[in-house]
């Protein structure tokens, strides 16, 4: 599981928090981080502004109850699993908590360590699975780059962020030249090896903050966040073209070469809506492809 498993404990009894912390530390010391909120309001604020994997939620808090916290997040899409803690086994309260979305409930006065660890391990297992599915849904399994889903989502975020902060972002479209003959002549295994290597070479050129994705077939794209100068996008496009075309690709029984046609567009210089920017980058990429005969060129923004 990437990163720490984060737990928020909404509990107004400091001794009980220390007890739960000891239990959690005993269960897993390495990768779990636990924070405390002592009121329902503080709990709601922390849950709204941070990512927690699990919330251990006490029922009776000073002014409100844990049910109020659950109600605050009932119709909001947050990733936190809630485990409700009650002092006694009051069926109606526990069922109300489950109805409001709690994953489980535990009785404080009859605390059972085994039950607690079972609940904790289920929450961690559930989180790991969610991350696995999230990865499957957003990653291209062949190259390890993002897939079209991720690219589309990130492009929307890039637009929102750039609009809000008055920043520029760049879009790079890459179409691989000469890839089809590799597939047709040497088969799909050879094609896959070339795509994997392409993914590696493209990934190598990008910054951590950039988004690189394989959109499908032999098409790749990049989003460059917080670009101060258009020349940065141009330079990166040239570096990528060079890394793709300057060295051959190893396949079984030999080597093959491919090139790249690249089109770039930047926000807000070339447009302020996603569809317009995508169309422009795509158009420039095809202009580049048509303008050459096997030689990579750029269609400058």
């Amino acid at each position: 599981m990437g990163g720490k498993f984060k737990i928020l404990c909404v509990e107004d009894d400091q001794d009980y928090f220390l007890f739960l912390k000891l239990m959690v530390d005993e269960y897993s010391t390495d990768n779990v981080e636990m924070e405390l909120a002592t009121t329902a309001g503080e709990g709601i604020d922390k849950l709204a502004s941070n990512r927690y994997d699990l919330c251990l939620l006490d029922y009776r808090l000073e002014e409100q109850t844990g049910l109020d916290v659950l109600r605050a997040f009932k119709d909001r899409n947050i990733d936190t699993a809630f485990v409700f803690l009650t002092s006694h086994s009051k069926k109606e309260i526990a069922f109300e908590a489950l109805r409001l979305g709690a994953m489980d409930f535990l009785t404080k006065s009859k605390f059972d360590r085994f039950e607690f660890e079972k609940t904790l391990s289920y929450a961690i297992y559930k989180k790991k699975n969610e991350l696995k599915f999230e990865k499957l849904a957003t990653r291209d399994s062949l190259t390890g780059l993002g897939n079209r889903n991720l690219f589309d989502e990130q492009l929307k975020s890039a637009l929102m962020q750039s609009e809000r902060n008055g920043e520029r972002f760049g879009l790079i479209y890459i179409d691989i030249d000469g890839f089809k003959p590799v597939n047709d002549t040497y088969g799909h295994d050879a094609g896959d090896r070339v795509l994997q290597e392409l993914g590696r070479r493209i990934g190598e050129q990008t910054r951590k903050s950039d988004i690189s994705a394989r959109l499908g077939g032999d098409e790749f794209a990049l989003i460059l966040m917080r670009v101060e100068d258009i020349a940065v996008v141009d330079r990166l496009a040239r570096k990528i073209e060079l890394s793709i075309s300057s060295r051959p690709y190893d396949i079984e029984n030999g080597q093959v070469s491919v090139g790249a046609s690249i089109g770039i567009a930047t926000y807000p210089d070339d447009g302020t809506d996603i569809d317009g920017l995508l169309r422009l980058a795509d158009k420039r990429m095809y202009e580049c492809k048509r303008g050459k005969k096997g030689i990579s060129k750029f269609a400058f923004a």
Partner: protein
Amino acid sequence: MEIDDGDDFTKKMEALKASFAAKLPDRLSEIEHSLGSLKSEPTAENIERRLTQILNFSHKLTGSGGTFGFADVSKKSAVVEERCEALLQEATAFRASYIDELDGLVRALETSIQNILIQGRS
């Protein structure tokens, strides 16, 4: 609660338990303070406020008392908590006899806490 592993864990648990036990008189004082205020100023507003406080204090004690292995404290505290809950929901006027009854329940809790402190000293 079953503890079946390492010495370190047992030591940490015992330290938490001792710290909790040492603070029991403070927890009782909080309840007594609210009860005292309820007795001296039995207005509708103050009764509701103080009963809610006693309910919250006793609720915490019920949960953590049971967790740290003080079953009797938890049980006595739960009785106080439940009585407060019922009194807060009662439609009838609050009578002086309720205060006496609540006082008796808090005294029973006090006895239970004193027993723990005496056991801890012996």
